[in-house]
């Protein structure tokens, strides 16, 4: 089964998504910000990571850049409340970003998106 890592600074959201995906049968791990994620990523080695774009500490761009140097190469799904314009899109399209979901999201839409990238 694919391993999924939830990176979100909001514990309620993090917990909720964790439960949701766990119920779907995924092996889960959580990180509370970019640094935490980068520390855990290689040991957990997830297949998919959902990454909130507005977190304290490292910027999303920094996290993505540092991720490139890690052994683990998970697919990245961005969770965001803001819309990306052209320039931002370019940044986030590089590396392992495969999709993004706008917050607040529908649970079903979220699941659909994750399941799309599991295969």
């Amino acid at each position, binding site marked *: 089964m694919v391993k999924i890592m939830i990176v979100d600074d*909001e514990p*309620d*959201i993090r917990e*909720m*998504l964790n*439960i*949701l995906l766990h*119920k779907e049968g995924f092996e889960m791990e959580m990180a509370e910000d970019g640094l935490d994620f980068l520390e855990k990523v290689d040991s957990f080695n997830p297949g998919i990571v959902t990454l909130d774009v*507005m977190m304290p500490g490292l910027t999303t761009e920094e996290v993505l850049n540092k991720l490139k140097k890690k052994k683990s190469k998970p697919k990245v799904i961005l969770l965001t*409340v*803001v*819309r*990306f*314009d*052209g320039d931002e899109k370019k940044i986030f399209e590089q590396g392992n970003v495969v999709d993004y979901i706008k*917050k*607040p*999201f*529908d*649970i*079903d839409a*979220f699941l659909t998106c994750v399941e799309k990238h599991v295969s």
Partner: protein
Amino acid sequence: MGKGNTKHRHAEGALFESETRFRSIFENVKDVILFVDKYGKILNVNKKVDDILGYKQEEVLGKNFAKLGIIKLKDLPKIVKLFRDAIRADEKVIPLLELALKHKNGTWVNIEAGTTVLKKDGETIGTLNILRDITERTEEKERKKQLIHNLKFLSESSMKFVEITPEENIHQLIADQIYRLLGNCYVLVNSYDISSNTMELKAITGIGKQLNTVLKILGRDLIGMSFIMTDDFAKSELTKGKIVKVPGGIHGLSFGKLPKKACSAIEKVLGIREIYSMGFARGGKLYGNAVILLRNDFELKDTEIVETFMRQASVALQRKQVEEELKNALSEWDVTFNATKDSTMLIDDKFKIFKANFATERFLGKHLNEILGGTCYELVHGTDAPPDTCPLKTAKHTKKHEGIELYVPEKNVWLSATVDPILDDKGNLTRAVHIIKDITERKQAEGKIKEQNIQLKKLDKIKSDFLNVTSHELRTPMSAIKGYLQMLLNQSLGEISEEQKKGLEVILRNANRLDNLVQDILDVSRLESGTMKFIIEKTDIQKLVDEVTETMQSSADLKDIKINMEVEEKLPGLNIDQDRIKQVIINLVNNSIKFSPGGSIINIRAKKEEGNILFEVQDFGRGIPKDKQDRIFETFYQVDSGKDTKFGGAGLGLAISRGILLAHSGKIWVKSKEGKGSTFSFTLPIKPVKDLEERFKDVDMFLLEGMGEGENG
């Protein structure tokens, strides 16, 4: 008759012949030949005495010449002495004598007298006198004399005109000169003012003790009297350079201004017979005129010399006027130059200041005496050569206006220094106008504006940050609420009862409503503050409408409403923020679904119309009352609020739609009939809109400027 007789007869004949010849000469010469004995008795005289002096031969024969009364008394002693001296000295010929003799009619005849003393046996017996009429010769001489006099007069006059100082009264000079030339008259000189078309009396000559009487009659001073030139003909006469007679006496002269009675009284006092006038004119321009009032016993002669003098005077008056105009212009320029608050200097190509206004003293802190003649770099910068930034140095090359702005820290002032070059025929800079201006106030104002701009940008940033943070903070809890609700509802967290399900559904519906409201409020705030982000992409319209329909299908299905699409084929792609335009159409369709009866139809159309794509969302619902159609695009306006709140919406959807469309340079309007349905239409220009965000700052979200212009199509 004997031989002697013949001889005698012969001699007699010769004598007769000689006698006849003598007689013939005696009577036919053009001079008077006069034999006088030593006592002065006229022994013989030829007939010419009649022609030249008007006396018959017989009238004077035997009379004493000296006592005829034809010799001037004062000449008599001179003549007697002449004769006496000649006789005493035993001289036969007395030198020619010129004298005037009185014609019988009383006129004087100029005579040249040649006299030979007649002697017999050494004793003087009388004189032979030849009197020649030399009147003509005398007149010629007179003429020559007059000519020389006139020449002298004119040359003297012209010298006077040249030497006249600005303080002297040129009009009086003219009047005096004319009087000198003519005598026996009064001369008035007027100056003409073209702007008021008046003649003003400037000078009088010739009126002596009668002046008081004249003043009494007029009751005012003569000098300074002015008359409007009502008579155009008289005016044109004045410019002709000829002396003309003025009709109507002094009354006519004053163009009818002075009363007739006073005029004739003055004429009587002064003994005026005729009035003449001539204008001072040059090139058709009138400078004034001279008026000559002739006395009873005098006739105007020598008009030519007067006219010549008048022309001379015209030149002098013209010159004087030009000089005065020049002087005025110069002084006006000087006043202007010195009134300027900015330092203004004229500088030559060696950077030397040769003229500077008073303000320069203040700018340079030096007296004009120290400034003039100095170089600007020494005086202004205290350097030996102009600095590289010197605009004059630059202007010498560019030959154009140059300027710099500089800050003087010692005085805490900002100065603007400009140079405008003055070029010669060859285009070389010979001189320049250098202006130094204190621009401290302007600079301070500019600084303030800059600061305000920075402040405004900061505020913008704060606002934008605030909205982003608020957005994040409001929506993150919503995500958790909605997520768990959905998980509970689909029983991923365990089984729930029907009642629990119902309750959770109500919570979810209201959470959605709250979420929508938060979204709308954030949109309105972004539109209003101009911080809404637009992401422009080439968008296919058919695809856009398809997506909207797909999204709305489930809502429509709930009321069994059919959504029809009519999208024209081959519509051009639009450069728009497709999510935002989708939001607009979804909002319109959503409204239509809300207000349509179950089982009805909603039409979505898109077609090309002129430079736009026209979108329409048509429903057959309850429609909007006419009086409310105008207001539905207002923020927070709800048609018939209360009853329909169950459908959600705080009346922001249409206001947001309008804002989004305005930012896209589009329009939105509605046509509706109560009970029959509504058609919402909006347009989007096919031509790409350059800067949506900039445009957006102008969008008046709260319709403070009033609704209606354009939006209602």
